[in-house]
């Protein structure tokens, strides 16, 4: 078991390196840099090349590419993420608050997605090809099909006109005031969670269907055991694992991927930070963000793999 874990951990390293190289190169291929983004806002008639060069030197942008890369890599090895090219502030600081918000939103959305997916999936599987099944499938696919930003616009519009609700100005972290915090995040969490439940529902339904066909289930039904007993004891145990897998994989994507949702609900999260960092050509910040999200994604994958290997010894020895 330990060997398997080690093997999987080592496999993460080349992937992370690949991500690092890719984002580094991608950013430098993109036209424009942070100095231009910063000083050319007014079409600056008095701007001088001299000023831009001074600024570039300060940020280390005049160094050859390989040198910039090794500097960055060296910093990463010491867990020093450097400073943002836009503000000059430590990147850890820039990310902290936004990470907390995005993490909380991702957790809430995943929870809502799970709470929706499991019962709905079971229901649809048990009543396959009946109107219950169809309704569940329509409901969940509708969630998948609705653009989250449109849903957000409609939600806010409804709340503004019907409930005279006004979106809050500042984000209240959970430890400051849990009720206000939840009140703020519940709406985007619902919008996002509803959307992601579709994937889970579909998975739950097909997993349940598969299990329901198993001989031992049919035997149990033939013996007249109560359906509920079958569901909770036998079928559910085997069906749940793929669903949880799918939802945890989606969770990793929720961290950086909720760009439009954050924009519509005015949340100061990682998605908006991403967009800001890219549009400002803040190389160091973008690189750090990408590495963060990629690492989390790989870690989640890792834990899921370990869980599977622990449950199914055959995988360990492959």
């Amino acid at each position, binding site marked *: 078991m330990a060997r398997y874990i080690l093997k999987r951990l080592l496999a993460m390293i080349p992937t992370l390196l690949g991500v690092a190289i890719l984002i580094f190169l991608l950013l430098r291929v993109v036209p*424009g840099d942070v100095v231009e983004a910063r000083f050319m806002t007014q079409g600056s008639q008095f701007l001088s090349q001299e000023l831009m060069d001074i600024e570039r030197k300060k940020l280390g942008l005049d160094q050859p590419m390989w040198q910039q890369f090794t500097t960055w890599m060296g910093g990463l090895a010491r867990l020093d993420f450097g400073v943002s090219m*836009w503000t000059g502030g430590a990147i850890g600081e820039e990310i902290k608050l936004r990470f907390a918000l995005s993490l909380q939103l991702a957790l809430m959305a995943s929870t809502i997605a799970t709470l929706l997916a499991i019962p709905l999936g079971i229901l649809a599987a048990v009543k396959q090809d009946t109107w219950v099944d169809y309704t569940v499938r329509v409901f969940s696919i509708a969630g998948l099909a609705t653009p989250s930003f449109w849903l957000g616009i409609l939600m806010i519009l409804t709340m503004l006109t019907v409930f005279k609700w006004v979106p809050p100005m500042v984000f209240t972290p959970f430890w400051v005031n849990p009720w206000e915090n939840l009140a703020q995040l519940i709406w985007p969490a619902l919008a996002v969670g509803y959307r992601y439940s579709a994937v889970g529902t579909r998975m739950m339904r097909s997993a349940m269907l598969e299990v329901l066909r198993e001989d031992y289930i049919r035997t149990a039904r033939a013996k007249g055991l109560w359906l509920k007993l079958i569901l909770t004891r036998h079928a559910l145990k085997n069906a749940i694992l793929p669903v949880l897998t799918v939802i945890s994989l989606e969770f990793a994507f929720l961290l950086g991927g909720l760009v439009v949702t954050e924009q519509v609900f005015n949340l100061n999260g990682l998605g908006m930070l991403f967009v800001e960092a890219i549009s400002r050509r803040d190389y160091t910040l973008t690189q750090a963000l990408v590495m963060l999200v990629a690492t989390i994604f790989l870690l989640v994958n890792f834990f899921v793999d370990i869980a599977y290997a622990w449950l199914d010894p055959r995988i360990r020895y492959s």
Partner: protein
Amino acid sequence: MKPVTRLLALAAAAWLSLPLNAQTPRNGGELVFPVPSEPPSYDGHREETFGLIHPIAPFYNTLLRVDPNDKSGTKPAPSLAESWTASADGKTYTFKLRKGVKFHDGAELTSRDVKASYDKIIFPPPGVGSTRKGQYSDVAAVEAPDATTVVFKLKEPSGSFISSLLSPYNFIYKAEILAKDMNWYEKNIMGTGPFTFVEHVKGSHVVGKKNAAYWDKGKPYLDGFRAVFMRDSAAQVAAVRGERAHIQFRGFSPAERDSIVSTLGNKVTVQESPWDCILLVGINHQKKPFDDKRVRRALTLALDRHQASQALSRIAIVKAVAGVQVPGTPFATPPEELNKLAGYWKDAEKSRAEAKKLLKEAGVPEGFSFTFTNRGIPMPYEPLGVWLIDQWRRVGLNVKQEVVEAAAYFGTIRKGDAQVFMDFQCGYIVEPDLDMYKFLSTSRNPANYGRYEDPILDALYDKQSRATNPEERKRLVRAFEKRVLDDEAHYLMTLQWHRIIPHSAKVKGWTVTPSHYLNNTLDTVWLTQ
């Protein structure tokens, strides 16, 4: 007249002569306002964005300021300098500084501090960047002969020198600190302004508190202010609408204003003004067929600016039909004259017919296609882009739009690949020298992306810059305008931006000006209860 009647008449006259809103300012309260963007550093000498001015200007003073009660935003007023004189030859300006001005750490302000600050702006040492250095190329030296006097020596007389000192970015720093570390002010704040720095939580807000030892006795009226960073304009609107914020100093769109007014009714005051920002259509003279002035004139003749002024002012932050100066300011061309220029005719049909005729003459086929490069900023670039393409379509031109992200935009334009593109200009003060500099030949002004040479235009600019007689200067400005917008159609003006500030009726003592960089020290602002 009987004595009583006389007394009554006097009293009536006195009462009538009182300004309408002469309430006594009330002390107290915290002004809350959203700021759409966060400052990358605190150094005004380095930054270009209003995201710096709105939250940070209250901590500083400048040598001179723009009169905060003047709607045109063009009148100089004393700030740290009590008074000033100019020499007869116009090459020496002497400023008398106020006594008893203290920095927030208690140190007294002297001319040394002013000199050190301006030296940093005009003559930065190697390795230190100064964004506005080019604006002071006429300045030979800054001297501080005694503790309360500062002297600026110019190489040439300049009609716009005083205006250049009104820049809200020219914070006066402490000489002692600058001597030790020129970059200290990027990450720190130490000024003489009406408010002292309390905190800046990244991504969240900046808080300032009343400077009890402020040199302008009795001011500021506010106890403090809170600048909250909110990128999304819907959130800013919601904040003002929900009465959680008092005012937003940049400007809202017409739809946003309408939504705030419809919710708050008479709890809101709306101040509007033409804005010293404008989008222009730049034309790359090095790309055929745009080297032919008939084609360029056709492009401007195709635009029905008067209809656009009515229509677009409903959906975008633009309104007035403008030439090279903001309408309503001293050097702006009056409408009757402006409407004679190509593209400003009231008869749109005639104008379009003329455009089509010119295109045909120049050999441009019907359905000719070119690319219009626009900047990736929603308001008002997008609606103006749609309008421009629509208007050009009506004279038979098939225009595709290429939108370039803001960060990469000027790099792309500078390369010279764009054919027709959106350019823009924003100033802190309306002054022909500043506003017309853009149109000078590219050899003189590399920031003129139109890539043309026009020595006649350059000569007109120089003449008006040195003109001391205002009427003569106006004449020269109009001649310049006619050449750049009509005869040669080097650049096309779209519509003047329109600044709309709906704010809580509780906010008093703040007057809107054409610039969103002005009037942000907040010393004159007070809140009713």
